[in-house]
Each structure stands twice: as structure tokens, then as C-alpha cells.
């Protein structure tokens, strides 16, 4: 079981409100991703749940029990840190066994659990090594191993992949997702990378300046962002946000259209000149300058033969246009 509920949780450091009052409910077995720009309070929120920071007010309950004042060790949660935070003086085996030793588990039983975790994570051949002798990906797996042996109520991940190179990041991302499928334990994952959020989450919590901007499944956030912040943050490349006269035509302050929802047509409403074209093979990203509008990004087919200075005409796909009011919120 691992249902976590935050009620009116607030955190301030001195005069600064890092997290103004916030409510959030995380269901058992869910994979929840906290995403937002750096400094938005997502790591602080995770640390509040972990018990590494005290709440200024409000309450946190885990499986219906009030955990607000419980020390981290007694919350039954496991955490994987950005820096891995392995114990450098202990072997991989001792690192993974440490939480079991702290729980006073019988040595034989603990060793069996470590062996099992090592098997799941492909660490069997490295059990006698020290963390310093491992690669970044292996260290990350040790950190995960140390978390899974405890059989926690929930896993907390604090930007666990940001120290890895791009290729390894994709692999580890999939491994963590598979781990979630296998264990079916609640996971809370903090990242500033919206691709990680989109690919891994059952539920995404978008944070900005300590406030929750929107909570929903990846596709919900993609399809119906609640405001311009979420619209701009979720999706890659970013949604085009257009203000001014063009927005006014749709009786909105801002309109938004995703790069993949723009078609290059013979005679569309928006005429422009190609500025930059990025050929990725599978896709081509075009930056198009349209008179009277912000530069527009277009996602087009891979083997498109368009270059700097070419004139093109664009048309937004039907029903894909988002409208936002003066306060940035989506208009019905």
C-alpha cells in the first residue's frame, strides 16, 4: 500500500514561501511525476514527503496515518538521490544491505534479498566492488537496489537521471518504468525534463513557483493544458503561443498551437519565411517568421526539402487551437 495525501501543506524558509498551501493526493501504485522549471519547489515537495524537511503547516498522511511529524526512517519510504548518495566506504553489497541492517533483519534473509535485488538490477557481478569503481549507470542501479530491498510503501526519485549521459538516460528511464510495472509500488519522481515526465508518468503534477499548475495524465496535459504555463512546458518542441491581432481573431488574449499541429499547405492563413530548419531525419523542425506574429515552430516530415529563406504557408489543424484568456487560463 502506498497512498499519500498532502493537506494544506505549506513550506517557508524564513520569510520566503517556497510552497504556498497545497493539496495533493497520490493513489496507491501510481507513478507520479513532479515536473517544473528549476526552483519551482518540486524537490522541496519531495523532501517534505520524505521527511527530510519539516512542513511549516499542513499535514501529510501515508496510508491514512498522519506522518507529518514522523522521522524519515519511520515513514516507510525509500529515496533515490540525484547524486546517488551511495556510501563510498561500503561495497555494493553492503550498500544495498544497509537499510536491512538498520531494520535489524536476520543476515541470511538480508543476503537473500540483496541477491534478488542484484539479479533484478544486473548487479550480481559487482557486489564486492566499491561505488567508486562503478560507472554512473551502475551507481544509479545500486541506489535503486538500496531502495527496493526495503520493500517501501513508495519510492521517491529526486532527478535520478540528470547525472547520466543521454543514451544511458533513455535506458534507465525504461528500466525504472519496467521496475514500476513489476513492483506496482507507488513512485514519485521529480524531474525538470518534460520528456521524462511524459514517458514515465501515470499522473503528472506541473509545478511553478511552488504552486500546482495542473494535475493530470500525460495526454490530458498535452491535449488540454489548463493555462499557458502548462501549455508551454509540456510538449517538445514547445507549443507556439501567439498574442496580438491573430489571437484577438479567436477572441482570446493568447492562442496556442503545437508545432505538430501545423500543416504546410499551398494556401493557408499564415504566410511566412523559413528561418532555421533542423533536419533530424525522422522530423524537420522549422522556425518560420510570420508577419505580425511571434516566430512559429513547425514540426514537419523528415525528408522535407525546405531551406532558409523559402516562403511557405501554414494552416493550424482543425480543433487543435488552444485559447487562453488575459489571466493565462484556458478559455472554455
Amino acid at each position, binding site marked *: 500500500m502506498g497512498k499519500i495525501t498532502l493537506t494544506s501543506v505549506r513550506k517557508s524558509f524564513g520569510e520566503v514561501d517556497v510552497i504556498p498551501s497545497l493539496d495533493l493526493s497520490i493513489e496507491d501504485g501510481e507513478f507520479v511525476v513532479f515536473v517544473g522549471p528549476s526552483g519551482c519547489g518540486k524537490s522541496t515537495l519531495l523532501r517534505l514527503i520524505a521527511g527530510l524537511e519539516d512542513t511549516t503547516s499542513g499535514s501529510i498522511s501515508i496510508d491514512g496515518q498522519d506522518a507529518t511529524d514522523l522521522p*524519515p526512517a519511520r515513514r516507510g519510504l525509500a*529515496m533515490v*538521490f540525484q547524486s546517488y548518495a*551511495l*556510501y563510498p566506504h561500503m561495497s555494493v553489497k553492503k550498500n544495498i544491505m544497509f537499510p536491512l541492517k538498520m531494520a535489524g533483519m536476520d543476515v541470511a534473509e538480508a543476503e537473500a534479498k540483496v541477491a534478488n535485488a542484484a539479479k533484478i538490477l544486473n548487479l550480481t557481478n559487482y557486489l564486492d566492488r566499491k561505488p567508486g569503481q562503478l560507472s554512473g549507470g551502475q551507481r544509479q542501479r545500486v541506489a535503486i537496489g538500496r531502495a527496493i530491498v526495503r520493500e517501501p510503501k513508495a519510492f521517491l526519485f529526486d532527478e535520478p537521471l540528470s547525472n547520466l549521459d543521454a543514451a544511458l538516460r533513455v535506458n534507465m528511464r525504461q528500466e525504472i518504468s519496467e521496475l514500476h510495472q513489476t513492483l506496482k509500488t507507488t513512485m514519485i519522481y521529480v524531474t525538470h525534463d518534460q520528456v521524462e515526465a511524459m514517458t514515465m508518468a501515470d499522473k503528472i503534477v506541473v509545478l511553478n513557483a511552488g504552486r500546482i499548475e495542473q494535475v493530470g495524465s500525460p495526454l490530458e496535459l498535452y491535449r488540454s493544458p489548463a493555462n499557458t504555463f502548462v501549455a508551454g512546458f509540456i510538449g517538445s518542441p514547445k507549443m507556439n503561443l501567439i498574442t496580438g491581432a491573430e489571437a484577438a481573431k479567436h477572441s482570446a488574449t493568447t492562442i496556442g498551437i503545437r508545432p505538430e499541429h501545423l500543416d504546410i499547405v499551398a494556401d493557408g492563413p499564415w504566410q511566412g519565411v523559413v528561418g532555421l530548419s533542423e533536419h533530424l531525419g525522422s522530423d524537420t523542425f522549422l522556425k518560420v517568421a510570420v508577419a505580425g506574429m511571434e516566430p512559429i515552430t513547425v514540426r514537419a516530415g523528415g525528408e522535407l526539402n525546405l531551406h532558409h529563406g523559402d516562403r511557405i504557408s501554414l494552416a493550424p489543424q482543425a480543433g487543435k487551437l488552444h485559447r487562453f484568456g488575459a489571466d493565462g487560463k484556458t478559455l472554455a
Partner: protein
Amino acid sequence: MARKITQTRKTTVTVIAWIIGFLIFFPILWTILMSFKSEGDAIKAPLAMLTSHWTLESYGEVQERSNYLRFFMNSVVISLGSTILALVIAIPAAWSMAFVPGRRTKDLLMWMLSTKMMPAVGVLVPMYLMFRDFGLLDTRTGLVVVLTLINLPIVVWMLYTYFKEIPGEILEAARMDGANLRSEILYVLTPMAVPGIASTMLLNIILAWNEAFWTLQLTTSDAAPLTQFIASYSSPEGLFYAKLSAASTMAIAPILILGWFSQKQLVRGLTFGAVK
């Protein structure tokens, strides 16, 4: 552009360094040389002294007149005892200052260090009276206590700078893994800080071994360490240079050897955190 280092410059600097090193070491060298002379030769002019007959007689006499081993054992007990006690107090203190600092932690550290700047003689009378009233005069316990108190600020400071270098996330990981404060310090912090603790310990042993003010004031015979052993050779009947030198050599030899073998640790300990 990197500064150009010519061969001449390198040689000059090396020679100067050796001269300075020699000057610093000279008193110790002279003491050692003098200890191998007879009492009569020891007071001769330097050149005449060097060319005179070498002998071990001063060592023989010193050993005959006083029991070196007893003084030595007192020194060992006092320096080790005060070091261990200081570490037991300083490790948790430095932990809290490094990882859960309060608003006044910096001030507290400065204040602790400032006590080292006070002349010891300023508190001699009250200390002496307290020692007398508690029956601690001329006891090993008394010296262990006083040396612990004297060196505690330095020990706390050194450990504090070491602990500051340990990433807080590792301790947080330990907390998440179910470690209580005791386990956290015992299984995670201390093993990681072993090099730092070791050099702090070495330095403190040396400081305690060499401490002469309090050990001379607060002991007479039972707890007298090697400092008393040396001092006993400068007596009202006159100075006995050769025997004084022999006694001094015997007193500094153990710590010199310890220092020699652990110099790498010591230098690391003293300069740790100075450069990153």
C-alpha cells in the same frame, strides 16, 4: 602565460628552502648531538664540542637517576586519554555544527577558538585551586581533563572542516534507510571521515605530548609526564647540558618518530579544505 621557471631559480629556491629547514631543525639537531657528549665537553665552544669524544654516558646517568619509562607511560596515557576523550566529545559537536547549523554556529566556533588566544597563566590560580579541591593535583585523570579542555576547540574545528566536505545527501540517504542518529554517525559519517579523524587525532596527540605549561604546573611526581622529566634536569644546582639534552632527546624521540611516519596525514589534515 605560465610563469617561467628557470633552472637557476629552481636551484636557488631549493637551497633557500633547505637552509630554512635546517635552521628550524637546528635546535633539535644540536640537542641530539649534545646528548652524546660528556658534561664537560658539552659546555665547550661549538667546534671543540663537535670534535670531542662521543659517549653514551649521559643516557646512562639519566636512566639511572630517573625512571624514564614511568614518565613515558604518563605521557602516553595523558596524550592518548585526552585525545580519545576530546574525539568522543568533538565528533557529535562537529556533526551538529556541520550538518544542523544554527544561526549562532559560526559565532560559537569563533568563540571556542578565541579561548585558545587567552594566556593560560591567566587562569592558573583558579585552575590550581579547583584541582586542589577536587583532589586532581598530580593525577593522570586531572591532566587528561585539562588537556582535553585545552585542545577541544582545535579538535572541533578540524573535524568541523572535515565534516563540511561530506555531502549531506549521503547522511540523508542513511536517514531514509532507517538509520537513527547514532547509526548515522557510527556507520556512515565516521567511516567516511576516518582520514580526517586520524589526522586530527595525530595532531592532538602531538599537541598533548608537547604541552608543557599545565603538565609542569599540575604534576609533581605520580602523574609527571616527559615534560617534567626534562625540566627536572634544569635544577638549582646548575644546568647539566648533556643530561638535559639526553633527557630531551628521549622525550621527543617517540613523538618525532610518530610525526615522521604520519607526516603525510598531518599535512593533509592541517591544510584540508584550504584549497579546493
